């Protein structure tokens, strides 16, 4: 592969993708927060939803978490892999997760394609995103099968390359030697990052974190009126504290 293409795909593309993703996501949240939703389709079909969505999400989350851990702590991973048994265990477990994600996602696609109601809530763009994701997961599984012990070579070859990007001192020497399948996997990942804000992938950001610590009930008071502002301010705060169940939002 000629060098300029590597430069384009492994250096220019990731930076462009990150910029597009960050700026696009902030803009979408700021200007079109109404459009940020999971667009759930469980309402139309319940059974296949479970058998598709659950393995897909759990599998993809495990695999993604492993990618992040491998990137953050490469030396730790290499030390863990020093004992073959542990290497095999990690490799098999993550491959299983990847395959679960792939199979689950195929169920998701079949479910969407087979049901007339679900077709109504699936756009052409949704199918494009779906195709990209299927390709990405399939590539990942293929890499794991064809080029085994990825948990070691990722830490040795890919992590340094990614860190060089983070340090704004890109070094593609290690990454350029990656096999074609693995390179495609990396490039497709950048593409997915770039389309993130323009697709239903944004639902990833809707984690229910405030639910874990907020009080059950939410009460919203009107903005304090100028006339009665003084009358309301003090007691409203007090009541929020008194009624443990309720909170003034």
């Amino acid at each position, binding site marked *: 592969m000629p060098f300029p293409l590597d430069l384009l795909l492994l250096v220019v593309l990731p930076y462009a993708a990150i910029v597009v993703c960050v700026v696009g996501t902030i803009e979408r949240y700021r*200007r*079109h*927060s*109404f*459009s*940020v*939703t*999971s*667009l*759930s*389709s*469980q*309402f*139309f*079909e*319940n059974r296949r*939803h*479970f058998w598709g*969505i*659950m393995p897909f*999400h*759990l599998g993809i989350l495990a695999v993604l978490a492993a990618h992040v851990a491998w990137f953050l702590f490469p030396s730790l991973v290499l030390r863990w892999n020093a004992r073959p048994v542990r290497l095999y265990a990690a490799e098999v477990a993550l491959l299983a997760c990847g395959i679960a994600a792939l199979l689950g996602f195929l169920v998701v696609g079949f479910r969407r394609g087979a049901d*007339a*109601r679900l077709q*109504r*809530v699936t756009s052409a763009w949704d199918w494009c995103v779906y195709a990209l994701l299927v390709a990405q997961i399939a590539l990942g599984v293929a890499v794991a099968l064809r080029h085994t012990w990825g948990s070691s070579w990722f830490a040795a070859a890919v992590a340094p390359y990614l860190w060089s990007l983070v340090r704004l001192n890109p070094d593609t020497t290690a990454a350029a030697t990656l096999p074609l399948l693995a390179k495609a996997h990396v490039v497709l990942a950048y593409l997915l990052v770039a389309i993130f804000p*323009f*697709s*239903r992938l*944004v*639902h990833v950001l*809707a984690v*229910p974190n*405030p*639910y*874990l610590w*907020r009080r*059950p*009930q*939410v*009460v*919203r*008071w*009107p*903005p*304090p*009126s*100028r006339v*009665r502002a003084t*009358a*309301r301010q003090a*007691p*409203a705060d007090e*009541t929020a504290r*008194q*009624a443990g*169940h*309720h909170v*003034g*939002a």
Partner: protein
Amino acid sequence: MDVRSQLASVFHLDKCLGCHTCSVACKNLWTDRTGAEYMWWNNVETKPGTGFPTLWEDQQRYRGGWEGGNGRLRLKSTSRRRILTNIFHHPHMPTLDEYYEPWTYDYAHLFTAKRGPDQPVARPVSRITGKPIDVESGPNWDDDLGGSPVYAGQDPNLAALTARERAELFAIERMVFFYLPRNCNHCLNPACVAACPSGALYKRGEDGIVLIDQQRCRAWRACVAACPYKKAFYNWHSGKSEKCIYCFPRVENGQAPACFHACVGRIRYTGVLLYDAARIEAAARAPDGGLAEAHRSLILDPSDPAVAEAASRNGVADSTIDAARRSPVYRFVKEWRMALPLHAEFRTLPMVFYVPPMLPVLSTSHDGLVDQTPSGLFSAIDQARVPVKYLARLFGAGDDRPVRYALAKQKAVRWYRRARVVGDVDDAVAECVLTEADSSSEEAEAIYRLTALCTFEERFVVPPAHREEAAELARDPLDQKGGGFGFMAPPRRGL
């Protein structure tokens, strides 16, 4: 004492004629949109019956509402832990099939059909897929099917009856039904609000209307699962949940909500209740037997100077306190104790109250003459074709005493008016019945007036929203430029 105000409602079931005008008024105003076709923020059900969505009262199936009673109070459908385990797939979510697939008719076919031997017909087509469908259920599918084994027979509340009572209820001569209009209860302890992972649902502090912030909703649909009345709906097109908004744009302008305004039978009353927010949690935790009483005890007397002063300190406007004093809801619920919450055992402390219906008694036949005269003065209550136990399941959380009390008072008012108008009942008998029903002639007169002669102004006491004091006046109007109220950008479905 933390006094807040709530716009509450009374539905007088004895007057409901089941015309569905309320539902249609609401549908025309709010849910005639893509993704909302199947929603009925207001619907009218036939009882006994399975309702909308099918069997919504069966919380074994839907896991709505709260469970508690022995000091604990937790949502049946979700919790901090389960919000994570059910994050991708909620196990107790109703699907469209539990409601119905909305449809229209292919009217164009009537004009475009090829010439043939038969009349062309307009076939039903799904409003979701646009394809022809076989209509298998609809919004009032069990309308008036009181004796049907398929619909009425499946009513979860019939569990309160013995096998013999059930058999009698479904005997062909005894078949009976009444109507139950339902919209969002705008509860004091709303399960939908407590379940929302995004914190998009909230209760308005000033009037207690429960709303969904459409900008913050992320389509978890936890509200749909958590609401035991199944009055939060998922808009499959916009990917947002929606619910009854108590017509707040109308209410803020002093008008009653559209369903109230449209009610032909004049069964709906709306007015302010002042309640003690500090005791909400305690009331929701009350033991099963004392739920109705605990619920009612939250409501405060607006004529009590201490209550009015505490309300005023909390920022409740004087006009709202004044409206609370004239509230028809306060009279029915607290003064006369004739209106009861629907399924108080769900522990959401609903703010719609129902006056239970007087049901027809079984007539007896003597020598070819049909005799409908009940033997005792209150015997109509026990001789009604639907046992009180059934009504107790709906309106008394299983306890028949509050239901009997409400029915006895209605009956006493009837005897009293009969003595006054028809004159075939002795005045002394009428007085005696009133005393037994814990009432008086003055009260009976007032009940009669608010039940039978009520004008618009008596039924709907909606305080002004005091827009003149609203903070918008202090804000830069150019902030809102291009908006009006509502969305700054059109509410389009996301990518």
